[in-house]
């Protein structure tokens, strides 16, 4: 089903935010919409977004490639993205990230066997005073989890895996 068929009101609302002769501006919000169902942008959606934005599919694909929050491949249903940048690392984020990976039995970047959770190290998320922290990204959006411990992650992962 196309984006227009699935989310007609949202597509219209997105297009309305930008000047009628600059539909290309809608490419980023439309890609978030395209990513909603499966947490990655399927190839067919690239073509459809291109038509909606009146640009070429390669131009849409370049946006997916440039911006880190868009994915062209399927991974875990939930991406746990741990900030390991300098301010967080000064408060133990590297060790925290290693402990999370060990608990899940995956390498950094890996996905659990049930396909539910992918763990990734990411750059600064603007929560340096509440490290260790991570965000969970899935099709529905993105949530911050701050002042985390291994125990709090274990509880969260159990919840995500039970879904």
């Amino acid at each position, binding site marked *: 089903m196309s984006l227009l068929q699935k989310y007609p009101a949202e597509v219209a609302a997105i297009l309305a935010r930008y000047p009628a002769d600059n539909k*290309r501006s809608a490419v*980023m919000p439309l890609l978030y919409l395209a990513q909603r169902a499966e947490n990655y942008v399927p190839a067919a959606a690239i073509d459809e977004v291109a038509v909606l934005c009146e640009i070429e599919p390669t131009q849409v694909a370049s*946006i997916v490639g440039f911006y880190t929050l868009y994915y062209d491949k399927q991974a875990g249903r939930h991406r746990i993205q741990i900030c390991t940048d300098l301010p967080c690392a000064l408060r133990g984020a590297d060790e925290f990230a290693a402990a999370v990976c060990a608990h899940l039995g995956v390498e950094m970047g890996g996905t659990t066997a049930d396909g539910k959770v992918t763990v990734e190290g990411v750059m600064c998320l603007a929560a340096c*005073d509440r490290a260790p922290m991570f965000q969970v990204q899935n099709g529905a959006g993105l949530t911050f989890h701050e002042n985390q411990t291994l125990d709090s992650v274990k509880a969260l992962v159990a919840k995500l895996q039970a879904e």
Partner: protein
Amino acid sequence: MIEHIVLRHRLPGLENINQLAAYQASGGFDAYRTVVTSMTPQAVIDLIKASGLRGRGGAGFPTGVKWSFLSNRFPRYVVANSDESEPGTFKDREIMERNPFQFLEGLMIASYAAQASTAYNYLRGEFWELAARLDAQIAELHAAGLLGKNVLGTQYSLDVHNHLGAGAYICGEESALLESIEGKLGQPRLKPPFPADRGLYGQPTVVNNTETLANIPPIVARGAEWYRTLGTESSPGTKVMCLSGHVANAGNYEVPFGITFRDLIYGLAGGIRGGRTLKAILPSGASAPILAATDKVLDTRLTYEDVAALGSQLGSASIILMDETVDMSWVAMKTTHFFKHESCGKCTPCREGTYWMTHILDRVQAGGVQAADLALLSDVTHQIGGKCLCPLGDFATSAVVSSLKLFPADYEQHLAVAAAVPAKPAARAKVAQPVS
């Protein structure tokens, strides 16, 4: 020393100003009302010029002067830069979460001053939940007649839209941000022309940081003279300082410009965690040179001029503190990985240079490097600095150059000769305990 102008939600009785009724009850939108119904756009620009307000996103450029550069063409646009991505910065997020209407009111006053009928708020993609709340708050402003056609019964009309980025630090650079709203890769433009002449969709555009905009309603309400009673002559007002790293009480501190590092860190933020000794300060996130925590530095006032005089930058005041256990070559490795990841790839010196710096610095951490490797590292920084379209290239070299200069022993301990000494070979000396 604390002065809450922007972080007003921290004041007793104002905890709920993230709700429109509570914000309006506290005088919210009175400034906007005054501006739209009784001031000319030029009078607003003159007022902000007179206040001496400087851009809080990092560059410190006078806001009113920036507004006065707009070319005489229409339509014009105003864009809020809420891309907040500098490591160590988390102030705009608190402002938009806890005091969103003051920020929006500032954006709306700026839009009136620029005679723009459309404004965009560009948020980093990670602020997804925040953007959803702001969408709802903007809808409330429409319902209240503060946004939309013929605002408050005047001829002025204004719409505000949120635009989410998707994980690119470079989009905090204003021309890259505009490219991103236009649906393109977030790569900086060659300047001139500047956005005030050719910005969004080639039209005259003002881009201001979130915190800058949040300062505007109080300036309109209380006047430029009042504003100048805060801070210093060249850096008036207050600044939200973001303290992170090994500080006892990390968080945002809103203080008048001119407070010293010492008073901020030891007087307000509880000093260094575990009573350790402060070794070094990154005053502007990953982007500006490291400062050794000497008495001279600690007694320096936090203003744009004073920090620049030390050979660093105040920037957005994302102050990262590092205690005596931290290896500065490790810090340089961390910041360099950040910039390698965030380089947009447009300029070869930055794209390739950050790649090579990470390789050398990873080898430093692994131990057993030669003195020639450190000379090569230094050489690479010279191939990047001053050779790129935007400042990201320069930023990428800051921590490397300054750490090599100020803390050579931190590198020398990783030399092959040093590694032969029966100490921990690739000692990544740093605090390893997560905060509980």
